[in-house]
């Protein structure tokens, strides 16, 4: 699904990623962990072509295609979805209108017929009721005045509607209470059908207990210093990041 080789990325003239190698097969769940500033967010942002990230060296192949040649829109329509740590508020754009537009752009890319308003509403309501989400947010402007938790749930709703192939989740659990974390985890697990892949950034064991990773990667100073399985995350929970590279 995703093959990253020797990736070097800088932001504002400072090198953040210093030779990342990472391979994600279809259906695999990978977790990135590390101290703040280690490069975790930069990696997922680079995969989704964020404007801050400048690739200086290395390659990223996505479904055997050179990802670095694709712009953010193309990457999204080919199935890459990044949830934001702090989703921006856009007053004046209705949330429902935004979701419908995004879905129909994807459907157009896949040469499927666009959904009309009634069909789309039916789809959205089925998702919000299945996962116990409040659909009042649909009537509001995009993320405007949303609490941190509401913003994260709105990211989840987008995931459920757009059904991407590669999910990049940047601390989707931060700011959520226990019940909300369960809702988010249930939603994400519903998408993991053995073909979809997940690359997740989280600090919380609770999230890892609900979405058990196949691989855990520790980032330090822009490099992956250790890779393990779920037991590595459990060890981190006890010892912290100090000495973990040894």
């Amino acid at each position, binding site marked *: 699904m995703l093959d990253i080789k020797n990736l070097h990325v800088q932001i504002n003239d400072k090198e953040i990623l210093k030779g990342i190698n990472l391979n994600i097969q279809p259906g695999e769940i990978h977790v990135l962990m590390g101290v703040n500033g280690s490069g975790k967010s930069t990696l997922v942002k680079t995969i989704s072509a964020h404007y801050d990230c400048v690739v200086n060296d290395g390659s990223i192949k996505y479904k055997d295609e050179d990802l670095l040649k694709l*712009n953010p*829109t193309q990457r*999204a329509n080919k199935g890459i979805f990044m949830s934001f740590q702090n989703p921006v508020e*856009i007053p*004046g*754009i209705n949330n429902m209108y935004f979701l419908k537009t995004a879905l129909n752009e994807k459907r157009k890319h896949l040469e499927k017929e666009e959904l009309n308003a009634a069909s789309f509403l039916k789809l959205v309501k089925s998702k919000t009721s299945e996962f116990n989400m409040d659909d009042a947010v649909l009537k509001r*402007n995009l993320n405007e005045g949303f609490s941190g938790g509401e913003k994260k749930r709105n990211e989840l709703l987008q995931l459920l509607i757009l059904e991407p192939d590669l999910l990049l989740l940047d601390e989707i659990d931060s700011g959520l209470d226990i019940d909300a974390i369960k809702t988010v985890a249930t939603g994400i697990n519903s998408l993991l059908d053995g073909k979809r892949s997940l690359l997740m950034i989280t600090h919380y064991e609770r999230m890892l207990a609900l979405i058990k990773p196949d691989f855990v990667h520790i980032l330090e100073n822009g490099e992956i210093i250790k890779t393990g399985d779920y037991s590595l995350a459990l060890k981190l929970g006890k010892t912290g990041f100090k000495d973990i590279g040894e």
Partner: protein
Amino acid sequence: MKLIDFDFENNIKDHQAYKSLQYLKLPDKQMEEFKKFDLSELYTTSFNFLNNTPLNNESMDEFISNDFHTLFINNAKVQPLNDLLNQKIKISHLPKEKNLSKNALFHLGETFIELQNKIEISKTLDKPLLIVNLFTSNNAFSPASLHICLEENTKVDILELFISSNTGECFLNINRKITLKQNAILNYSKLEQSSKNDTSIFNYHSNLLKKSTLKMVSVNSNAKKSLNFWDFSLDHEDIILNIDAIVNINEDKKSANIANIVHNKENIKSEINVKHILDDTSHAIFEVKSTINRDASKAKVFQSSKTTLLSDDARIFAQPQLIIQTENLEAKHSATCGAMNEEELYYLISRGISEEKAKAMLIESIENEVIEKIYNQSIQKFVLEFKGKNNV
């Protein structure tokens, strides 16, 4: 006939108006280079001087709806449709009233009008009022004047629609005087659809009494040149004045919002916010002067110009000014200018929306932020649908 050929001296009875015209300072070449908004060519263009445009039933039917009471004002004559309104609204055509506006363009328009239309509303209406102005003649100079007057304790929502459909080049000089008696509340929205070579000038002047509230929302003009001139002297206590406007222009269009607001009594709040979206070689002016005189303590005065530039050649001249002569007040002014918000754009395109579509959505979001200031939901809905249909 050209305005420049008009014998002003022998045809203007109002000495003050004549003096205003004599000293009408159109931008001279030096100013023009700086501000690049020149009205002088209007005075050398041949126009048909027109005070009346005939209406047909077809053009009227389009605007009749259960959501509104609809009135037609056809440059000279107001034509009410609904007799029930006569109990709450009095419409008259009167000789021009003396006007204290300092705006020379206001007096220019008045010069060519014989009878002024006046709408006096004595009771709160159950539905908003839709006032429709249709201009269909080619190459016409169309001065139009209306005085809207609300009696004490009356609350009214008005949408005034200006539609110019012609293939030539028209000059609309629209004067609106607003009188609000004590405790009256007027939510006034203006929506304009002009032809591409038109020049439209809107001159607003007011007489607001104690505890009255005037909230105005101005939505876009697609005229070649458009000017809103807001001239308000606030002479009574406890007045609230809000003006919100959206300017979204492209090609070589020009737009100006010029305001002169004077606080003369205490506890007055005035706020003017204009959002600009400028593309190609378009140019906008935001020139707002708020004067808070010594007796105007406890004033709240806010001015804001926010501009999104979509091209390297678009220009904004923003000059918010506060002249403060009292110590007890709250005042703020700002003028910001920049390209489209990169973070917002990225959020949309990262969801698979094309960059072109995402930019259109963001432009619409800026417009919608202003349209959402329209208090009445029926008017809001009308404006959104009208814009969608006519790409205003």
